[in-house]
């Protein structure tokens, strides 16, 4: 039992970080019906940026979030303008899937030229610190990562509910045509939200590098997890993504400890298939209209 609870704690902490990455993905989908397959590669890119800042300029990885996130926001805006916005036609959505996949390959290629393919890890002095709470072990960096992710998610939801920009975003999600008629600049909202989605990946990525070793190819594993999280939660649903990320974290951690680590991520895919069998639109999703 002790082990199970320990695993649940671990799973929740990890799930929090995944929730942050997935939030960007699901937000972008909700607004422009674009799946950003490069989200995983962007997370890894941010992890490398933070790694480089740490190893060359001794910037603390948690502080580097403040540098990496704005930089990646700009990158996200550029990507949206150059690659995504230029897609036209009735199958622009499907094309965006492939364009962002190509973008992911490009990022992987560039990273492996610059940083080689050996695994890296950002290891600040406190990387190995462990707290013991009621006999359960909690790694300091994971707790920090979880708290940071939760804080950012809170900021994001405040941004969406309390600001003018947030209202414009929500209006666009609900009814793009009506939003435009009400004077919302759809292009601007889309570009900024894409940048926002990428920033979420960036913030999570800077932290990811402290918890996990990574190499340029790590994005495949990441994106498969992120995509299944947003599908399980329901495409476009922010709350759904958070819940699904936590479900994934806990499922994997418990299966790894109680059964076999090799079946951990498989077990999560099974959860996904079963949920889709009952609710094709995901836990909190709205049924997609036929296209």
């Amino acid at each position, binding site marked *: 039992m002790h082990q199970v609870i320990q695993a649940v704690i671990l799973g929740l902490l990890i799930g929090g970080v995944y929730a942050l990455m997935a939030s960007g993905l699901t937000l972008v*989908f909700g607004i422009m*019906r674009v*799946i950003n397959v490069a989200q995983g590669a962007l997370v890894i890119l941010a992890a490398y940026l933070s790694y480089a800042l740490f190893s060359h300029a001794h910037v603390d990885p948690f502080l580097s979030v403040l540098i990496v996130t704005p930089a990646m926001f700009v990158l996200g805006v550029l990507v949206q303008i150059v*690659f995504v916005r*230029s*897609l036209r*036609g009735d*199958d622009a*959505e*499907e*094309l965006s*899937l*492939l*364009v962002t*996949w*190509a*973008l992911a*390959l*490009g990022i*992987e*290629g*560039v990273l*492996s*030229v610059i940083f080689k393919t050996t695994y890296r890890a950002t290891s600040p002095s406190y990387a190995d610190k462990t707290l013991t709470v009621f006999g359960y072990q909690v790694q300091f960096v994971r707790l920090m990562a979880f708290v940071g992710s939760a804080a950012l998610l809170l900021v994001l939801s405040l941004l969406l509910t309390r600001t003018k920009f947030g209202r414009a975003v929500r209006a666009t999600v609900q009814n793009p045509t009506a939003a435009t008629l009400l004077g919302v600049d759809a292009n601007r909202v889309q570009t900024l939200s894409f940048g926002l989605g990428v920033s979420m990946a960036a913030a999570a990525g800077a932290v990811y590098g402290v918890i996990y070793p990574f190499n340029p190819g790590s994005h*495949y594993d990441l994106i*498969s997890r992120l*995509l*299944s999280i*947003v*599908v399980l939660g329901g*495409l476009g649903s922010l709350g759904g993504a958070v819940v699904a990320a936590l479900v994934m974290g806990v499922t994997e951690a418990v299966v790894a400890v109680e059964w076999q680590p*090799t*079946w951990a*991520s*498989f077990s999560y*895919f099974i959860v*996904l*298939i079963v949920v*889709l*069998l009952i609710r*094709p*639109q*995901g836990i909190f*999703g709205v*049924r*997609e*209209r*036929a*296209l």
Partner: protein
Amino acid sequence: MTRNGLLRGGAFVAAGIAFPLLFNAAWLVNIGILTLMYAALAVSWNLFSGFTGYITLGQVAFFGLGAYSLGITFEHFGIGSGYNPFYVLPIVGACVAFASLPVAWIALRTRAMTFAIVTLTLLFIVQQLAFNLHSLTHGSSGLMLPTPTTFGVDNYDRPFYYAMLGLVLLALLICWGILRSKLGLMLLSIREDEEKARGLGIRVTGTKLVAWWLHVFVTAMVGGVWAYYLTFIYPESSVDPLVMIGAVLMTFLGGRGTLWGPVVGALVLVPAQQYMLIHLGGSQLYLVGYAAVFMVVLLVLPRGIIPSIRDGVVRTRERQRTRGGAAKAAV
């Protein structure tokens, strides 16, 4: 149109059969095999995604399943080497296709983007199974298939070449048949408007599943031939996202939803890729270059070569006709 189609088909078959006889250097036949392999994958991807409008990113999972099924059949049923494994292939393909139906049924309950993502996770599911079902697949250590000893040395590659060619032709025939059948009309109406198609009394799910079955059937056989040719498979190489991207890229380049588009795409891209690898290889920019080509195709030529040419031809003809008409009117 039909006469032209027959001519085109006949020319392709003749050129395909003649190629290894005219150019019998093994390295050329080898590149021929790779080209046909991608052509077969692209045509069968198009067979499902091009005709239904549902983008699947999981096709290569069934390529891997086909490869492993043939490998496991070798190990447990002793199907011998030589030509025998080729005769077993249709059974392997059919079994994989039937086994994929329940998953397809669940996946097809979702729409558009969700469907694409669910099929993408199939890649990872099959790869994990290949890793974890150790007693069947030998996991990460990989599975060795026997090397055929009866094919000789000089023309060793030929049987594999003709097997791949056969699969391309099979896939093309299926597409051709679909295009001029009721099934094709039903698929077209699903692609245009699924709800309306359902309203018209078309059994939407059943129709999509037929197309799905056919595309997996061909894909799995391609995987089998590839595994037999390479003699050694392992999880990452049999379910490789880059192969998936390759097939999709070729279809987009040639033209989605057309009969010959995927073949044209493969004929252009595979040799080009080999050429670039030899002449630009070692510059480490291979992956970046690949991504750049993909991006350019999607952004500049999203409809593909064949539809663009067809439009071009139609436009020129129309221009000539109008000009001719104008000239007449002037007279």
